[in-house]
């Protein structure tokens, strides 16, 4: 049965400041969508809000996964419903191996009714599946024994995210700037992994990016432009080409109200990045 993820009029604030100002977007399983937008347009806010980060406050709107509004749920419950977020900056968990972490994750996601403290997926079965998946994705076997994201290169972090995606087989996956910080070979490698995994599990994918290059490898059927905290354009691959050729000036001219909001968001993003350095 094909599931849908339907986002309606989503308004999200962080630190009391409204970033998303009414986002509407519908994904079906098996579809690949690209969400493009300039820096600060609210792309990452959308991914964090959908996954349930506690710092992101939903002011209004709904996100229904198969008819149920997931915005009321904790992040772990959303994961169990079949939502996955590939992080732009995955967090290191020192002392916890990739294999140990994944065994917990896989067990929880596949047996959502399991009570805490009950047995994890049998070790032998899990190891076999992990080994096969790693081979398929061309990930070195040593990877499983390393501490999660600790000391990983940028490319290794993204491949670890794809490995998790492959093991968790979600109904919907959001890839948040998965191409950032990768050279072109790494982008290709990661993209091939995503394509393989998504095709097999029938995952609906939302690729968030502000570059075209990842979309050369993960071909979207639907393209959306997020600008000033709302989706202003919906289309197909021609939108990618147009943005590549002309940038966002035409979007700015066509949607002057959104441009005002976008300018403010970009100023804010710039100020924050300065602060971070």
């Amino acid at each position, binding site marked *: 049965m094909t599931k849908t993820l339907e986002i309606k009029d989503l308004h999200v604030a962080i630190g009391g400041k409204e970033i998303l100002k009414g986002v509407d977007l519908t994904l079906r399983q098996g579809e690949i969508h690209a969400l493009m937008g300039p820096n600060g347009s609210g792309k990452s806010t959308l991914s964090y809000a959908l*996954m*349930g*980060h*506690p*710092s992101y*406050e*939903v002011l209004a709107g709904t996100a229904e996964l198969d008819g149920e509004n997931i*915005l*009321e749920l*904790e*992040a*772990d419950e*959303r*994961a*169990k419903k079949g939502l*996955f*977020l590939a*992080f732009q900056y*995955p*967090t290191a*968990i*020192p*002392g*916890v191996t990739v294999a*140990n*972490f994944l065994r*917990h*994750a896989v067990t*929880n*996601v596949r047996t*959502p009714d399991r009570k*805490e*403290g009950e047995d994890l997926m049998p070790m032998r079965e899990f190891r076999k599946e992990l080994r096969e998946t790693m081979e398929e994705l061309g990930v070195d076997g040593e990877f499983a024994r390393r*501490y999660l994201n600790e000391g990983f290169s940028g490319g290794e972090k993204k491949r670890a995210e794809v490995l*998790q995606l492959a093991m*968790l087989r979600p109904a919907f996956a959001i890839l948040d700037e998965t191409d950032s910080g990768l050279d072109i070979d790494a982008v290709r490698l990661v993209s091939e992994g995503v394509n393989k995994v998504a095709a097999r599990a029938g995952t609906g994918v939302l690729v968030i990016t502000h570059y075209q290059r990842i979309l050369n490898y993960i071909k979207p059927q639907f393209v959306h432009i997020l600008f000033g905290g709302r989706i202003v354009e919906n289309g197909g691959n021609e939108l990618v080409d147009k943005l590549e050729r002309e940038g966002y000036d035409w979007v700015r001219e066509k949607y002057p109200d959104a441009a005002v909001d976008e300018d403010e968001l970009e100023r804010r993003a710039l100020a924050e990045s300065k602060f971070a350095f």
Partner: protein
Amino acid sequence: MRFGFSSRPLDFDEYRLLRNQLNSQTTGRFERIRRNPERRANMSVDLSAQVEGIKDEYKYGFRDSDADYSFKSGKGLSRRLVEQISEMKGEPDWMRQFRLKALEVFQQKPTPTWGGDLSALNYDDIHYYMKAADRQGKTWDDVPADIKRTFDKLGIPEAERKFLAGVGAQYESEVVYHSLREDLQKKGVIFVDTDTAVREYPDLVREYFATIIPIHDNKFAALNSAVWSGGSFVYIPAGVKVDIPLQAYFRINTENMGQFERTLIIVEEGAQVHYVEGCTAPIYTSESLHSAVVEIVVKKGGRCRYTTIQNWANNIYNLVTKRAVAHEDALMEWVDGNLGSRLTMKYPAVYLVGEGARGEILSIAFAGKGQHQDAGGKVVHAAPNTSSRIISKSISKNGGRASYRGLLKVADGAHGSKSNVVCDALILDSASRSDTYPYIEIDEDDVKIGHEASVSKIGEEQLFYLMSRGLSEAEASTLIVSGFIEPLVKELPMEYAVEMNKLIQLQMEGSVG
């Protein structure tokens, strides 16, 4: 001075600042912003269940109500009692005199006011000596049935069969069971309780007894010296390597009991041993006292590892003095896990007295509700080219307090010495507390000293990352905590590592797994 700091040590003011910051921090993981008030209410229910849980779930809290005592002293301490203990044990006069002198020192020394709060400890409300069995068993069948049942529940005979070279089991004041693998006996290894050692190996005992930790060392060492009973005596002859661990198990069963075991380990040249101790007690409303003394000598080229998994019930004052002397090219390692007790004050020490000697102290402390773990380590570099490493990891939760207290001393002339101290603290909620008291005294120029301290709270981003993969908040926290102590747990033998992880899970989950 030429310091090879891997990171600059904090000076006193910085430490004070850090401490103050920690104490004033008010945002904890349980105060995360939650959108849904209904869930928030559920959360607080979960939390209070957890808080309750910690105490209820101490799984070693059972007691044997009908244990039959062949001797039980009245409460309180007197010259007469000390004489009586010595008499009952049939000790030589030197030991009797030693005890009496120690009693005087104990009575003269004030109770320490640093470290933890000892004001509620009432010396007159304690049974100082209790004997549950008339004789010691060589097989478990010799042990009185009710006591054997207790050790069965604790899994000791099973562990012995599976992976130990020798076992000593102490119940209240006396060791009720002792065994050592036959091939080791033939090689001259001695592993007996210390009372037996005084009788059977008087010269060996007298040569080393109280030479590492003299009576005057501190009030509790003096107390132990006066009323000591039980503990292990281990002697490893030159060149003998004991490949699998010897274990001692200490059990307090009675309310207001004081347990004062005394352990002496001698590792001769080129010999090797791993000694493990475990401790539990039932839960009573009033306090019991555990005050041990452990002395270790590691001779030239010898190696000794001493592992403690202390999991006392939360009403035990655990005030222990542990010290080792490492001679030329010897290695002494303390692996110290402190999970239970009301207050633990324990700082395993290594004196590096021979050139090239090495000392390592790995310490994990977990402070839950109503607990204060004041733990750490002490290393004295007294010879050239000696090296040491102290790694301390503490976790505090539900209002618990974990302190690291450490001394690093390099004496004049201990040139070419190296030391590295790392203390990491993890604080799980805003009610809990962590402090660091590192003392460093360097009287030699040619040394390399590194000191790093870190304090972290379970990060919101770490929790979110794990939860986004389907782990519940509790499960995610447990995983983060077990990762935090992983560098230490992996130093433990497999069986203990598994046990340690189980204990941590129990402390974290607040539900029986």
